[in-house]
């Protein structure tokens, strides 16, 4: 550590670093590789596909021409039966041609994107108000709230799923699509608010109070000082917190599965992928391509927010 490393030590160091990095990214490489492989190539242990096979991506993104589905002979005989009405024939044909084969990936991605975006924006906004109050203002109950927020967060979703579900049933929210989505949105808020408040509170404390004071001397109210001085100065952290909340909602499976199970059109990606995997259409290349496309936005978010996120999460050792 103090003196220069010997050649052997250098070699050991690099070997260990490479081993750790490979351990971390190997599953990602596996996903990428399988998503690009042709089915005949799956058993090949090499990560490099023999032929580049993009059908899975094309299919998910709706770039494939619609396939002609063969109608089974028995059904064809039924269709040829003149006694059957035209409407019934049409119904039969659509039933067999559309089949269970459609996996509307775009739709699921849009669902996930919308709910994550709404969660991210609302959680960041509400958390910034609360964090500012807890960091800067004096009011009764302040210290209880400042400390309580984190403990609340340690109560995991599993412990709350039954009462939250029963609550939404008893107020009637679970019986409609809109109500279900609203319940889910509220649940995502409580899953993100505590850490968002904590991260923003820590950040606000690093901004010198004299800046607000100067603004208030110039005739700004407290709220204006918050809005015009603190918020613009906190942009990087606000963005980081937004990304954090967005990703939490994007990844969430438990509550999505509890609330959205019966509303297939509103499935989020984690739920849709799990359903796809357990359905008869489980085909590795398609699963992996879908995983890759679910992963990609998260990796992009992560690269955008990494610098502040690592620091924000470790100060005080909050999230696990």
């Amino acid at each position: 550590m103090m003196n220069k490393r010997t050649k052997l030590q250098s070699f050991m160091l690099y070997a260990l670093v490479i081993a750790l990095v490979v351990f971390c990214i190997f599953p990602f490489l596996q996903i990428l590789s399988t998503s690009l492989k042709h089915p005949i190539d799956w058993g090949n242990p090499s990560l490099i596909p023999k032929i580049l096979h993009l059908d899975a991506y094309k299919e998910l993104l709706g770039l494939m021409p619609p396939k002609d589905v063969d109608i089974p002979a028995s059904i064809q005989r039924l269709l040829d039966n003149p006694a059957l009405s035209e409407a019934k024939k049409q119904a039969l044909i659509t039933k067999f041609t559309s089949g269970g084969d459609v996996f509307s990936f775009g739709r699921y991605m849009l669902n996930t994107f919308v709910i994550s975006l709404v969660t991210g924006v609302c959680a960041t906004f509400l958390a910034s108000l609360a964090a500012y109050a807890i960091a800067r203002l004096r009011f009764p109950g302040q210290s209880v709230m400042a400390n309580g927020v984190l403990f609340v967060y340690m109560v995991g979703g599993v412990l709350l799923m039954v009462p939250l579900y029963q609550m939404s049933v008893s107020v009637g929210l679970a019986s409609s699509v809109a109500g279900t989505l609203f319940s889910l949105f509220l649940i995502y808020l409580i899953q993100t608010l505590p850490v968002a408040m904590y991260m923003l509170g820590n950040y606000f404390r690093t901004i010198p109070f004299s800046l607000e004071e100067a603004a208030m001397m110039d005739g700004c109210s407290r709220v204006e000082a918050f809005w015009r001085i603190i918020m613009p100065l906190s942009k990087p952290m606000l963005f980081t917190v937004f990304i954090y909340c967005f990703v939490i909602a994007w990844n969430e499976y438990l509550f999505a599965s509890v609330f959205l199970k019966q509303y297939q059109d509103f499935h989020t990606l984690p739920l849709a992928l799990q359903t796809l995997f357990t359905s008869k259409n489980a085909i590795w290349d398609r699963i992996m391509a879908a995983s890759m496309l679910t992963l990609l936005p998260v990796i992009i978010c992560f690269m955008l927010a990494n610098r502040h996120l690592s620091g924000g999460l470790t100060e005080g050792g909050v999230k696990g």
Partner: protein
Amino acid sequence: MSSLLKKSEAKLGLKLVAPAVGIIALLVIYPIAFNVYLSFFDVQLNGQKTFVGFENYSNLLCNPRYYHSVGVSVVYLIGTVAGTTILGLAAAILMNQDFRLRNLARGLILLPYFAPVISVVFGWQFIFDPVNGIYNHMVVDVLGLTDTRDNLIGNPDSALFVVIVFDIWKHFPIAYLLFLAKLQSVPKDLYEAAAIDGQNAWGRFWHVTLPELRFVIATVVLLRVIWNLNRFEDVYLLAPNVETLPIFTYYQAFAGLVDQGIAAAISVIQLLVLVGLIWLYVRKVLKW
């Protein structure tokens, strides 16, 4: 005048925290109480309730499946907590050295932590797939350790170990981040002094690094226990046959013969354990 200012400040403060704290109170604090209430009822999915007293608890405590899932949870907790802590510490020490492309390596090893569970589980499932997976290829075809291709995830006993390795892979980065932050603040002279005292690398680790990190290690261990006690998605999505407590609760509440009252009773017991752990965290860790 100043008391008037104070009052208006307090008013503004309460106004600003009201939405966030209100939502948290309504959707976390209230459900915890409601859960205790539900645990004394036979609860249907559609909200019908019949009072049954302590029957849920007595049924639960006579159910061997409950004890089995407690056992699985304990193995899971010991494995994952030890694994994430040790690997996190090792990674932090490694990444604290100087080497080329260090920032790239630091970024890459955080990936498992941020990636969506649902995507990475398929990668892991493919790795352990009996027909196509690299694991069976290595063990059977390359190393020749066994003759048969095993479905590790299909068998609940071996799946538990896959889940533990998966969880360590997924969560060691957060432990690593905490350790690295602390390591960077350990004064260099401590190492120099130890070196002058004739300590080799191992001695410096044992006499300087470990004592300096003592509190962070305790924090990491306790937080891992708290988080992994509630861990659902990582286990359920990778291997739904590994019945840790949260998975058992989920099956009781939403699958097959639904009995949400029992699920509520399990949650109440688990919450008591959790509160004990959180209390330990507050008293021992936050006070340090």
